[in-house]
């Protein structure tokens, strides 16, 4: 039950562990989320860098690093297909559930939402800590799965049965880990919604909220209502694997010549429905906070009000709503009938419109601006074309006819990575560079940051752009040895290019890591409002103390009052009375 204790005693000194480890302060929890999420992002990316060796040079031993691996994974440095499949499955799982969502929702959401709405903390601080630790447990369980016999889950991050039902132990551990991660998201989403509904500062009506808060609000509803079906599916698959039920196993299965001794009568497509009922809204869970962050940064750096604030709000609400009724476009090739495939194609086309609206609003905001090319602005601006590519390439996948050729090819991978990697991840980097001074009181190094940006920007396009070429050529995804096929052999050169880009991207992240830690000590000290921002988080002391605001803030105006004519400064904070 979601209640927190009410100790009337105020402030007694907390020891280090209470303050920084088992803290219930939303800012500490936010930073915990962000750091854990960033660590997992890097780890998940390392898995991919390993896979990219195999893809670029199939069957050749990986020099140096390859020797570190066991004979069950990379004997002699050559990657086994089962290990490749494990890496693929875990890359997806870690990036989505342990990396991006915790960083975007857990990290930025926790840190910023209470600050931006003028609250002292989240509505349920203990629940918030429980949410983090549940996530942490889920992460630990996922890591443990690397050490169980047979390796971690190897049936893809989508875990389609029957393959996942008959997979090695790692899949069971994966399901357990997912249960923890889902619980964490559910606790978090309840907390966000209650906080946003109940705890906005005086004067902060819904339509004065910063757009980031709106994005988090919609995201929370998606998590709240879309995750439970996956939890149900995980329970059913767990029963299949542990108790011998056959919810996802039809009758008459014969695996490598041996008939399965099961009751049968199940339906493998049922899993896909339950999985994608979550996983499509999950795409918007990944992208909405990113859009929120980018909006904040773009408005702040254009020094003018946001174009079409209300349009944007209605667009994300509509986007969130529609995301629940498009999921079966992931399943066009599972034999659905004319009516339903027409329905899902239509909803898929409809959901593209609000994305266009959002992008257009953000670009038109640039008109008449005075654009400050700060470091976070670099990443925020890069987000726009990258997200555009990601969104546009969804179009041929959303139409069944063109999907026939592109389904389950690298085109799909290119499409969603453009949304999530140069899209969401760039937004998250932008957010880190933007709010780092608020959290630490110091700026991050601009030169290192710009190097990080330009190398990452070029490298990340170098990874994902060739995927469209491979997809058009018809290369199936999840191939351990792409050179097996003549049509894939023809585009094998792109694989070498992509892999090199990926390794360069990996190296570029070292610049970020160095910058992140170095700036903690050596960064230039800043005042409370280094970017001349208007929203409430810039009205707190830096870093914000426990309880955030020195006195309860009162909000007098909308979130983006920049360059108001006749005003001395080019920005009016929301808390400024006139």
């Amino acid at each position, binding site marked *: 039950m979601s209640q927190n204790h009410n100790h009337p005693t105020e402030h007694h000194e907390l020891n280090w562990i209470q303050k920084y480890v088992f803290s219930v302060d939303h800012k500490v929890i936010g930073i915990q989320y962000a750091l854990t999420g960033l660590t997992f992002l890097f780890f998940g990316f390392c898995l991919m860098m390993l896979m990219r060796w195999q893809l670029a040079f199939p069957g050749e031993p990986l020099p140096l690093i390859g020797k570190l691996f066991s004979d069950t994974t990379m004997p002699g440095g050559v990657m086994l297909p089962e290990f490749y499949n494990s890496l693929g499955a875990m890359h997806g799982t870690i990036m989505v559930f342990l990396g991006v969502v915790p960083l975007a929702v857990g990290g930025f959401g926790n840190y910023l939402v209470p600050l931006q709405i003028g609250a002292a903390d989240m509505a349920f601080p203990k629940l918030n800590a429980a949410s983090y630790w549940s996530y942490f447990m889920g992460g630990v369980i996922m890591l443990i799965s690397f050490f169980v016999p047979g390796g971690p889950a190897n049936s893809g991050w989508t875990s389609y049965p029957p393959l996942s039902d008959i997979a090695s132990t790692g899949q069971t551990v994966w399901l357990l880990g997912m249960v923890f991660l889902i619980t964490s998201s559910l606790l978090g989403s309840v907390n966000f919604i209650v906080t946003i509904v109940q705890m906005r500062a005086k004067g902060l009506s819904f339509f004065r909220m910063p757009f980031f808060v709106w994005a988090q609000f919609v995201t929370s*509803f998606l998590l709240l*209502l879309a995750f439970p079906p996956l939890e149900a599916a995980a329970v059913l698959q767990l029963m299949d694997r542990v108790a011998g039920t056959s919810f996802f196993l039809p009758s008459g299965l014969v695996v490598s010549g041996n008939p399965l001794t099961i009751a049968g009568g199940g339906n493998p497509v049922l899993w896909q*429905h*339950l999985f994608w009922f979550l996983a499509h809204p999950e795409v918007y869970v990944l992208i909405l906070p990113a859009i929120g962050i980018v909006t904040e940064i773009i408005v702040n750096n254009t020094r003018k009000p946001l174009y079409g604030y209300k349009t944007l709000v209605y667009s994300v609400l509509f986007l969130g709503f529609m995301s629940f*009724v498009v999921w*079966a476009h992931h399943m066009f090739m599972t*034999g*659905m*009938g004319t009516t*339903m495939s027409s329905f899902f194609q239509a909803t898929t086309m409809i959901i593209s419109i609000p994305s266009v609206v959002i992008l257009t609003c953000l670009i038109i905001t640039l008109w008449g601006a005075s654009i400050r090319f700060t470091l976070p602005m670099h990443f925020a601006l890069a987000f726009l074309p990258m997200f555009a590519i990601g969104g546009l390439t969804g179009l041929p996948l959303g139409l069944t006819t063109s999907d026939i050729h592109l389904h389950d090819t690298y085109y799909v991978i290119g499409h969603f990575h453009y949304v999530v990697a140069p899209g969401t991840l760039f937004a998250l980097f932008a957010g880190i560079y933007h709010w780092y001074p608020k959290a630490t009181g110091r700026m991050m190094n601009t030169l290192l940051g710009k190097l990080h940006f330009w190398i990452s920007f070029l490298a990340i396009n170098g990874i994902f752009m060739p995927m469209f070429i491979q997809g058009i050529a018809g290369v199936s995804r999840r191939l351990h040895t792409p050179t097996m096929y003549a049509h894939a052999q023809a585009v094998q050169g792109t694989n070498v290019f992509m892999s090199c880009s990926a390794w360069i991207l990996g190296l570029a992240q070292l610049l970020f890591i160095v910058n992140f830690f170095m700036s903690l000590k050596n960064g230039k000290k800043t005042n409370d409002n280094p970017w001349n921002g208007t929203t409430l988080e810039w009205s707190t002391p830096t870093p914000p103390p426990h309880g955030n605001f020195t006195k309860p803030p009162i909000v007098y105006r909308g979130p983006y009052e920049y360059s108001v004519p006749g005003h001395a400064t080019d920005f009016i904070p929301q808390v400024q009375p006139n």
Partner: protein
Amino acid sequence: MSHDAADIQKHIKTYIGVFIALACLTALTVAISYLHLPTKEAILVALFVATIKSSLVAAYFMHLISEKKLILYVLVLTAVFFVVLMALPALTDGGSFRLPYVP
């Protein structure tokens, strides 16, 4: 909260009334099941009775009948997605063009 003792007394009467109604409906639904209606009718009747029962619980025990609008909005939203979750997978699966599996 604006409950005074007299209010609560009235509530308690309602609770007992609801309890009796629930008990009767439970008996009813069990009794109907012994009639062995055709499957379709049986499902309709059983779900109809269950819906009445759950509405009673939600309306009176969970005070939804006098609950604030905010809560109702949340529940309406949930109900919409609940219907989506019930209907779309079943429709998609039922309408598929696959042939029956003959081993």
